[in-house]
């Protein structure tokens, strides 16, 4: 899965959890929680959806890397790369 399709998947997932927010309008470099109401329960649902869609394990210690859209894409790309390499 390339960067663009990962980005689309992240945005779609966010849009599903927070239909009131327009994910495409968010600044991808800035913490999601600083831009929209996004509490721990929303984040849990977000992480579960990414885990289920991509089959990646996301340890709790990695959660900070998922705080922005760019961060999510980078993290998921790294995961995919290391899986391909491993």
């Amino acid at each position, binding site marked *: 899965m390339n960067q663009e399709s990962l980005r689309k998947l992240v945005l779609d997932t966010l849009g599903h*959890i*927070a*239909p*009131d927010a327009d994910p495409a309008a968010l600044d991808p470099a800035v913490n999601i929680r600083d831009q929209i109401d996004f509490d721990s*329960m929303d984040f849990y649902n977000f992480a*579960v959806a990414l885990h*289920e869609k991509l089959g990646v394990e*996301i340890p*709790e210690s990695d959660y900070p890397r998922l705080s922005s859209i760019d961060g999510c894409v980078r993290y998921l790309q790294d995961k995919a790369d290391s899986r391909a390499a491993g």
Partner: protein
Amino acid sequence: MPSLGADMEAGTLTRWLVSEGDTVHRGDIIAVVETVKGAIDVEVFQDGRVERLLVEPGTEVPVGTPLALIHSPGEPAATPKAAPKAESARPSARAPGRGATAGDARGATRRRVSPAARRRARELGVDLKALEGAAAVTVTDVERAAGGGPARAASPAPGGMRAAIAAAMSRSKREIPHYYLETSVDMGGALERLSTYNGARPVPDRLLPAVLLLRAAARAAARYPEMNGWYRDGAHVPSTAVHAGMATALRGGGLVAPALHDADSRPLPELMRGLADLVSRARTGRLRSSEMADPTITVTSLGEQGVESVLAVIFPPQVAIVGFGSIVQRPWVVAGKVAPRPLVRVSLAADHRVSDGHRGALFLAEIGRLLENPEEP
């Protein structure tokens, strides 16, 4: 039209999900109604066959109006000439069923429309049915369909919902003699156990601190019945089940407190999934009638905003509400020494017509005990 909370006076039947002649089972979702709190899936509370649909989609009717006649097995069949009498076929969907999951498959084919989008559609006169194709309908979609730019007023909540919250809270402050108690609880042990528990599990099986707080409040409520149930007709009606109303802030503004059923007794992992699902559905406008109608106590959590304390207002006709502030690092005395510990402030607002501060204090201490000496996970 079911009463979906003390603050609801009427609702609009949006659509039927069953036809006359269909067989229905207790808990099936048979209709969608529009209320000030958004669209609610109405569950049927008995098994039977749909004899007649009494209300046309698009009609607003007062709470208590029969929506349909359901013929239960064993009842004499209603003849076509018979007036809709209670003896022949009970008006259904009037009292809440609960714990229902059937009918989800049918509901799942519906698009998700956020409460704010629904409200905006009403304001702009946009027909939501016309917005085909989208998996989720947002305010932006609605405004685009209306042809106008986002000229959204900065209203903090849907007009109708704000008025309903105001009515319920005014009634609460007018009728319920509140008393308030508060205590601090050391969450260190619980959070350590949680971290260990979560470390060994994939994302979907992990627990959030919120579910531990909720669980402790629910278990304490089961042990202190005067905090659980409703105040009706001048007396406390206790409830054996604990259905915790989860106060949930909506992104477009406003608040709902749908019930998480059997919060004291369901296995913790199941409760976590139920909580995540409930909050998600509250925020995307997909709650069920039983969840709106039957909370026995409310729990409100401030989450991670760093605000330490909430003294809440009881949702009538309930008799208590438990408030949790953010979990914050604070100096605390442990074994004679000051040490930084993660603390949470737990408050109780309870109804003096039902209980006194002494019992309230025991209840609050029980929550603290359950959090500091967790029986689970």
